[in-house]
C-alpha cells in the first residue's frame, strides 16, 4: 500500500475526462480546485472534467473533503462528534504551528521591511468594521450591538480559512511570503477594538483594562503570538526537532479540524434560517468586498501573487474564535447566534469551498493589473 510522496507521479487513467461534459459546472461550482498543475504564480488553465470527475472532484484538496464530510454528517444527524478536548487540541496545534512558521520567517528577515506592512494591515483590520457597520446597522436594521459585533467578526480573521488557503497555494506550488502568519496575528486585534467602540462609543463605563485582558489574553492570540515568539527565538534550526509534530502533521491536523468545523458549521445553518436572508447575503457579499480590499492592499504593499491571495483571503474571512469570545464578555448583549451564524454558517464554508480559489484568481488579476500600471 504505497503512497507516492511526490504529487506529480499519479499513475494510470485518472482523471478519465474526455468529453468535457460538465465544464460549465466545473468553472463555477468548483472554481479552481479542479485545475492542473502549473508553475509558481502563473495562470492555471481549467481542466476538462468528466462526469466522474464532477462526482469525485479529483483535485479538490482532501482537507476540504473532510469539511464536507463533517457538514454532511452533521446535517444528516449522524452521531459523529469530536470531543471538546480534541477540538481544543487540534486548534492548539494549528495555532502554534502557524505562529511558529511566521516566527521562523521573521527570524530571517530584517524587521524594518515588515513593520510598515504590519501597520498597513492593522489599519485595514480597523477600517473594515467601519465599512461593514453602517450596512448592518442601517440596511440590515440590526441592533447596534449586533451590527458592531458582526462588523468586528468580518474585520478580524479566521485562522482555519488562512490554513486552507495556505494549503491550497502549496498544493498548486504557488509560493508566498513566509511571514504571512504575522498578519494573521495582527488582524485579530484592531477589528475587536473598533467593534467595541462602535457598540459602546467612548462612554465612560467601558472597562478598557478588562477589554485589553480579554483581547490579548484570549487563548487563540496567546498561542498564535506565543508560537510567533518561539519561532522567532528558535529560528529554523531551533524548530527542526519539533517539525514532525507541528509541520509534517499540519495538513492531517487541519483535516481533522475541518471535519469538526464541518459538524459545527452544520449546527449553525439553523441559526440563519431564524435570522433571515439579510445575514445570508451579507455573509456571501462581505467576503468578496473584503477580498478585493485585501488584494488591493497586498498588491500595493508589493506582495507576491501568493501573498496577495493570502491577504485577500484573510480580509475575506470572518473570525469565529477571538472575536466571539471577546464580544461575549465585553458586549454581551450582542447575540452570538447572529454573528456565528453568518461567520461559521455562511462565510467559512463559502470561503473554503469557493472563495479561496476565487481569491487566488483575483490575486492574479490584481497583480497583472498593478504590473501593467
Amino acid at each position, binding site marked *: 500500500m504505497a503512497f507516492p510522496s511526490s504529487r506529480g507521479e499519479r499513475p494510470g487513467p485518472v482523471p478519465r475526462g474526455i468529453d468535457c461534459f460538465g465544464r460549465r459546472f466545473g468553472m463555477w461550482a468548483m472554481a479552481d480546485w479542479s485545475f492542473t498543475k502549473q508553475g509558481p504564480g502563473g495562470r492555471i488553465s481549467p481542466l476538462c472534467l468528466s462526469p466522474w470527475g464532477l462526482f469525485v472532484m479529483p483535485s479538490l484538496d482532501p482537507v476540504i473533503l473532510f469539511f464536507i464530510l463533517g457538514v454532511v454528517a452533521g446535517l444528516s444527524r449522524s452521531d459523529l*462528534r*469530536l470531543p*471538546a478536548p480534541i*477540538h*481544543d487540541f487540534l486548534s492548539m496545534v494549528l495555532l502554534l504551528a502557524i505562529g511558529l512558521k511566521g516566527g521562523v520567517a521573521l527570524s530571517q528577515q530584517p524587521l524594518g521591511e515588515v513593520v510598515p506592512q504590519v501597520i498597513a494591515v492593522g489599519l485595514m483590520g480597523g477600517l473594515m468594521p467601519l465599512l461593514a457597520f453602517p450596512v448592518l446597522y442601517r440596511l440590515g436594521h440590526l441592533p447596534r450591538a449586533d451590527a458592531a459585533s458582526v462588523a468586528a467578526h468580518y474585520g478580524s480573521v479566521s485562522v482555519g480559512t488562512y490554513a486552507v488557503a495556505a494549503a491550497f497555494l502549496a498544493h498548486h506550488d504557488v509560493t508566498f511570503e513566509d511571514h504571512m502568519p504575522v498578519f494573521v496575528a495582527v488582524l485579530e486585534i484592531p477589528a475587536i477594538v473598533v467593534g467595541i467602540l462602535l457598540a459602546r462609543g467612548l462612554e465612560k463605563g467601558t472597562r478598557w483594562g478588562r477589554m485589553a485582558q480579554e483581547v490579548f489574553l484570549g487563548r487563540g492570540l496567546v498561542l498564535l503570538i506565543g508560537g510567533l515568539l518561539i519561532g522567532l527565538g528558535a529560528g529554523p534550526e531551533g524548530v527542526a526537532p519539533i517539525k514532525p509534530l507541528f509541520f509534517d502533521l499540519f495538513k492531517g491536523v487541519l483535516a481533522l479540524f475541518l471535519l*469538526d468545523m464541518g*459538524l*459545527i458549521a452544520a*449546527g449553525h445553518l439553523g*441559526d440563519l434560517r431564524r435570522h433571515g436572508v439579510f445575514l445570508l447575503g451579507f455573509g456571501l457579499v462581505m467576503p468578496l468586498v473584503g477580498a478585493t480590499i485585501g488584494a488591493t492592499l497586498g498588491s500595493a504593499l508589493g506582495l507576491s501573487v501568493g501573498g496577495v491571495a493570502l491577504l485577500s483571503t484573510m480580509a475575506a474571512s470572518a473570525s469565529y474564535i477571538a472575536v*466571539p*469570545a471577546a464580544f*461575549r*464578555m465585553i458586549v*454581551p*448583549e450582542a447575540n*452570538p*447566534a447572529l454573528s*456565528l451564524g453568518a461567520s461559521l454558517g455562511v462565510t467559512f464554508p463559502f470561503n473554503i469551498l469557493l472563495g479561496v480559489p476565487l481569491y487566488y484568481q483575483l490575486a492574479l488579476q490584481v497583480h497583472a493589473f498593478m504590473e501593467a500600471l
Partner: protein
Amino acid sequence: MTTHSFHRRRLVTIITEATLEGAILADIDALGPSGYTVTEARGKGSRGIQSGSWGLASNLRIEIVCDETLAPKIAATVHQKYASNYGMVIYVSDVEVLRADRY
C-alpha cells in the same frame, strides 16, 4: 462510629455559558462562600442548543453550598448581572451537611 447530626444549608446551582467561567467565579468568590464546584455541561434552553462540542458551545454547572442568608444573595447577584445577556438557569435547594462550621 460516632453519631453525626446534620445541619440545614442551601445549595445554589447555576448553569451558564462556559465563556463566563472566569468572571462569574470571581463574582461568586467575592460574595464569600467557603467554595464552589464546577462541572462541564451541555444542554438546551431558550437560547438554543449548547452542544458542548467547543468552548463557545459549552455550559458549566456551578454548585455552591452556603447558608440561608448567602444563597439568595448569590442567586440574585449572579442573576442580576448575567441573566439578561447569557444563557442561565439558577435554582436553589435544601441540603444537609455534617460540618456546621464550614459553610
